């Protein structure tokens, strides 16, 4: 194992884990605050990637596209929330699960219909297509940029949730919704806001994942399963748990592809099953179920 290889593997894990993290946090926010287990999250992630792709092909600068694409996904999320998610809130969790399952297929089908089956490549500014020497290895610049973006998103989220009034309200609503509504805050607004925020996060993850893995209609499926594993292991609704779990799964998946490709994912699923059955509150014990 040379230093170059070690650095490669570490950076690959961080990049992968970073994308998982953004998706998982979005999923957790939607679950914790909007009280919906959103199986269509992967499709929203894919829509973010495709939106970014379309914007870039329309000659919009890359970094501007990264800002606009999540907003587009947010709008989609808003429409979905108001039309089909909100009426389901009073019904049992099973129906909501089935509903978002169906939504996933509808969105996937729409993606195929609009953009076709072929994989798409997102064009990047020239400087990002180079590799940079780092600690003995040459690593693609755009992957390092992805790491920076992930860090920036996490920092922004932490500031938002920790320091702003809206953020603190959202956190309170996740823990004691009844109390928050007693304080006169409109819970419907909270639900909508949380859902839209979660969708925006999915969109951001999608748009930065575009150059990493190429954009194709099935990209949401793989991400969905992985992100579920992450939030279960981290604890449903727990943001801190998601950080640890995302990095963990990022490392596991990268190492597994490197060493023993065959059983890797099976082990990951088994870990998920074990946690669900024996420690449902997740690694940090902060998760919650309805």
């Amino acid at each position: 194992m040379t230093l170059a290889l070690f650095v490669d593997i570490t950076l690959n894990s961080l990049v992968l884990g970073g994308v998982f993290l953004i998706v998982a946090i979005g999923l957790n926010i939607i679950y914790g605050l909007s009280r919906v287990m959103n199986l269509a999250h992967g499709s929203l992630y894919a829509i973010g990637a495709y939106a970014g792709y379309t914007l870039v092909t329309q000659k919009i600068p890359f970094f501007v596209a990264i800002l606009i694409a999540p907003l587009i996904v947010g709008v989609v999320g808003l429409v979905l929330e108001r039309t089909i998610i909100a009426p389901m809130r009073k019904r049992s969790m099973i129906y909501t699960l089935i509903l978002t399952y169906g939504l996933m297929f509808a969105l996937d089908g729409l993606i195929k219909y609009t953009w076709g089956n072929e994989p798409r490549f997102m064009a990047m500014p020239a400087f990002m297509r180079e590799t940079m020497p780092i600690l003995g290895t040459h690593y693609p610049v755009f992957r390092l940029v992805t790491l920076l973006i992930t860090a920036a998103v996490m920092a922004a989220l932490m500031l938002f949730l920790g320091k702003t009034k809206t953020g603190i309200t959202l956190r309170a609503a996740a823990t004691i919704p009844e109390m928050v509504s007693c304080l006169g805050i409109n819970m419907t607004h909270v639900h909508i806001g949380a859902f839209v925020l979660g969708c925006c996060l999915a969109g951001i993850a999608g748009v930065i994942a575009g150059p990493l893995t190429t954009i194709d209609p099935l990209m949401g499926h793989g991400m969905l399963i992985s992100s579920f594993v992450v939030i279960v292991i981290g604890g449903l609704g727990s943001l801190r748990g998601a950080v640890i779990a995302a990095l963990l799964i990022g490392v596991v998946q990268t190492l597994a592809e490197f060493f023993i490709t065959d059983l890797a994912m099976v082990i990951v699923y088994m870990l998920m099953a074990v946690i669900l059955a024996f420690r449902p509150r997740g690694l940090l014990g902060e998760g919650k179920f309805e």
Partner: protein
Amino acid sequence: MPDKSTTLSPLQIFGMVVILAVLAAFPFFAKNRFYISLANEMLIYGLLAMSLDVMLGYTGLLSFMHNAYLGIGAYIVGLFLIHVSASSLWLAMLVGVAGTCLIALPVGWVQVRTGGLAFALLTLAFGMMFYTIVWKWYSVTGGDDGLMGVPNTSVTLAGIVLGKTKDPKVIYLFTLAIVSLCFLATRRIIRSPFGAVLEAIRENEERAAFIGIPVRLYKLLGWMLACLLAGVAGSLFIVYKGYIGPITMSAFAGAGVLMMVLLGGMGSLWGPMVGAGIFIFIQDYISTKTEHWEIYLGIVVILLVLFMPQGVAGVGGYLKRLRR
């Protein structure tokens, strides 16, 4: 209040005999063997959908990828017929169903420790696990290419050869017989005190525990029944198709089964069978017309959940409410 009696009224018996007769006569009137194959597939998936209904409609637990157990059953039977012996169909099916139950038992034991959302996610985790194993275990399962070249056998009863599985009519009638038996048996089980306990668990798990029901045990038993039926469906599947691939065990196919139950109506046993028929027909028909049939699938699921969660079986109740 739904009719909970275990005996069948003369009218119900007459109705069932008529339906059975029509179904049995079908292959002799069908235009060509393609339609017989389609009906055969509807019966198999009807059985699978019914097994999912035992979990979803009666015990109130969502199993996301129940088709995994159809797949496992199919692989075991297929491997048995290819590698061990192609002479005894009954033995192969017995091994297949037993094998499926053997695998479902530890899975179920882990799963019934939870309920609701956690249970559903666990079924997803295990389903994905089986899918990945089947896909990766290339040397045994043929991986992505699937299990092919399953030999034809003959259907025998008490030593008399009734027909060869090469003949589509034979397979169809065989499938019809087995599915009908399973339906009647399951109906009997559901309408027994056992079924009542399952429904109690569905209504309120905590309260059921309070009155002294060993909730986990009953959930496990319900799960085993559902997986046993799925295993039977799997055996019928491999005999009919001669082929099984990981695609049949995928999350996408799992959604299809869920939709069949939803379409037909949860908690009615016969509803999901009708739902399976409708679903397969639509899928076959729509996929010939447009390649974007996934959009329609998704929209139909959404509409069903929003407006018609009782499915076809609930139409009667819906109409009654309209008339008022």
